[in-house]
């Protein structure tokens, strides 16, 4: 809430004033109500390997994170630019491979990447769009800069929390809303549906049928899958509800087979089709890849997008943007050492205590070392892993991450946050819903915001009436 100089940031002025006018008990009671609401609606996520509770609530903070419209406009442009480049990049990687030939991105990083799908090489996807839905993780530092922390080009999750957080906030804190002009986000499902429909194969009729493919109710994001299918008004299907005949995908309905044109799949590549990928997968649909290659169905996102959101590829994103768009990147990358490069590795090994080191294929906060918070033994152990397989790691400085006010038992306290805005990309253009999911590290001083590591979320407000300059 406060900038480097200790003065309240302009967008937060009304919130700060409001906070002084309410009793601490008021916040506590609203916190309790919020938890009750989330529990009752069933907004939960499953925790793998956790015995005692297979369904957990993500902690929700009732104070909004606020961003001024002018700042958001900058961010939005940068996000669209990035997703545009990601799409051109993927079409190129599975097509002519110009960027590899030009030596801008090392080809072994692409071809040896486990997320690269040789099955897609030389294939065109409907409308040449690979990434229809992207979640770009952004952090802000104390010097007011925005940095991209990670690109999520596979099946980014969290958008249901963004939407539900807003609903809960409007129910619990109508007064606070009254003080602000908050950009609405409720049209996201409409935009998502429009994007999916527009991405249908050219051969599909005027009224393409879209479905959402889920691994099932034991998946950690099942709540989100059912929530979105409901808001979109499309069927929530499991693999066993679909079948392929003559390269056409159908779903089993009480009225007989019905043709499917677009699949918003929330199932990883590996599980999509036991004939093409993991033969032991019971979650997918046999023959789906055949229908896909025949151009009879759109998968959103396309198969093989994972290669672009890999953490090693991430380090090349500024070059990727320049290569395809001939523009300067509007959003900065967090400075990153590629451990595959000798000098970088030496530096990282020497400075492990100050850096965050991540596995290039890790996700959800697993397989990382947070240097400043690690014990000597942990650092030594990680150093061995690193020396053993440097290609598998990148390292980043622990940035002076910005904080947001969070309502905690003792009152209001600062906690580190990041932001995941959601970008939709279709043949008719790109859109970003104003805001996104703000994730909070609920533990004091912690930098880890992942829900699987105990992180929480809060509502994100893009507000209209605040100038950029400080008062």
């Amino acid at each position, binding site marked *: 809430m406060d900038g480097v100089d200790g003065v309240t940031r302009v967008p937060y002025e009304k919130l700060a004033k409001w906070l002084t006018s309410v009793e601490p008990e008021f916040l506590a009671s609203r916190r309790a109500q919020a938890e009750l609401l989330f529990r009752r*609606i*069933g907004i939960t996520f499953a925790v793998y390997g956790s015995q005692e509770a297979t369904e957990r609530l993500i902690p929700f903070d009732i104070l909004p994170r606020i961003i001024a419209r002018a700042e958001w406009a900058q961010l939005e442009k940068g996000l669209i630019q990035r997703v545009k480049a990601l799409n051109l990049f993927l079409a190129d990687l599975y097509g002519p491979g110009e960027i590899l030939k030009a030596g801008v991105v090392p080809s072994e990083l692409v071809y040896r990447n486990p997320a690269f799908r040789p099955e897609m090489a030389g294939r065109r996807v409907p409308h040449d769009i690979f990434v229809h839905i992207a979640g770009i993780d952004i952090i802000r530092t104390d010097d007011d800069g925005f940095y991209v922390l990670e690109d999520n080009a596979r099946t980014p999750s969290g958008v249901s929390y963004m939407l539900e957080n807003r609903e809960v906030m409007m129910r619990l804190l109508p007064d606070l809303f009254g003080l602000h002009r908050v950009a609405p986000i409720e049209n996201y499902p409409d935009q998502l549906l429009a994007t999916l429909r527009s991405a249908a194969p050219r051969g599909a009729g005027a009224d393409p049928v879209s479905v959402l493919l889920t691994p099932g109710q034991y998946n950690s994001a099942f709540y989100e899958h059912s929530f979105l299918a409901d808001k979109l008004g499309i069927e929530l*299907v499991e693999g066993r509800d679909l079948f392929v005949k003559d390269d056409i995908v159908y779903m089993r309905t*009480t009225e007989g087979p019905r043709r499917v044109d677009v699949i918003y799949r929330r199932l990883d590549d590996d599980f999509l089709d036991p004939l093409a990928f993991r033969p032991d997968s019971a979650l997918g649909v046999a023959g789906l890849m055949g229908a896909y290659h025949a151009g009879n169905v759109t998968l959103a996102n396309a198969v093989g997008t994972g290669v672009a959101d890999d953490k090693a590829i991430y380090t090349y994103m500024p070059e990727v943007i320049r290569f395809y768009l001939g523009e300067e990147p509007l959003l900065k990358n967090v400075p990153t050492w590629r451990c595959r490069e000798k000098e970088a590795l030496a530096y990282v090994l020497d400075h492990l205590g100050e850096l965050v080191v991540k596995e290039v294929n890790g996700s959800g906060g697993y397989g990382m070392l947070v240097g400043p918070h690690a014990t000597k033994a942990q650092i030594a152990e990680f150093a061995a892993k690193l020396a053993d397989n440097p290609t598998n790691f990148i390292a980043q400085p622990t940035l002076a991450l910005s904080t947001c006010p969070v309502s905690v038992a003792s009152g209001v306290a600062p906690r580190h946050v990041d932001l995941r805005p959601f970008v939709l990309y279709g043949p008719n253009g790109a859109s970003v819903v104003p805001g996104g999911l703000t994730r909070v590290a609920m533990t004091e001083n912690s930098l880890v915001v992942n829900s699987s590591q105990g992180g929480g979320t809060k509502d994100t407000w893009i507000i209209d009436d605040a100038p950029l300059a400080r008062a």
Partner: protein
Amino acid sequence: MLSRTADNLFWLARYMERADFLARILQASRRLATLPRAYGGVETEWESALLSSGAAPAFHAAGLTVDEANVTQFLAFSPDNPSSIRNCIELARVNARAVRTALTVEMWEAINGAFLELKAFEQASRSAEEVTRFLDFVKQVSAAYDGGAHRTMLRNDAYWFSRVGLYLERADNTARLLDVKYHVLLPETEAVGGSLDYFQWTAILRAVSAHTAYHWVYRDSLKPWLVADLLILRPEMPRSLIACYESVVQNLDRLGKSHGKQGPAQRHARTVFGQLEHATIENVFHNGLHDFIQSFIADNHRLGALVSEQYLF
């Protein structure tokens, strides 16, 4: 609609209805168990609760003694009894979660809320007071779910499949209740129309909330064949077999209409309904109540299978 969704909705409705029925059976048994021994002397109420719920074989296989505490535990709370109330609610929720998109918010919240509260009841004591609260809670949950469905669901396949499941289950429950009453509850030495008999029939009527209704319909003192008439052939009695089948036929017809074709399920349901329409209670008793009910239960079961087949569950 997805066949899997239809299947889930069908079973979801059945589990919720079954939970309600079990709560009613337990309440009726508790009421009978409070009668002074002078009225009869033979305690059959807990055995009959097991029989009418269909859980007797599993209960005896587990080697348990038939008494209030054990039967209540088994029918209400036991995780080992596949159709205990607890398991019905849990299975209902598993089904509901899988088809959330087909449920309205009210229905989901009724089930999800019940599932959460269930945990508290499981840990509570088994005092008479707690059990009473629990059984009331189950009936409320079932009513809230049913009411939520009735008030908020679109009248489309989702609704019709749910209703077919509900009425099929309810018909099955009523039939079992009657069968058990006739063959087990009444000790052979007891005269039909004796005082024990009277209280037992009363308890059955109360279990299905039809005690007052009986008097409105017949304006007569309790007579076993009239109770049977009420629960089998009276269309104005919402739990009677004929009322359930009227609804089953109606909802299957709507499904048939919206799908543009009728099938074996519709034809079979109409046949069963027709038989009920042409039956008289004199005939039923003349040919044997037990046989009548057994054949009804088999027909009803067959309808469930036909629905699954026809709609590709």
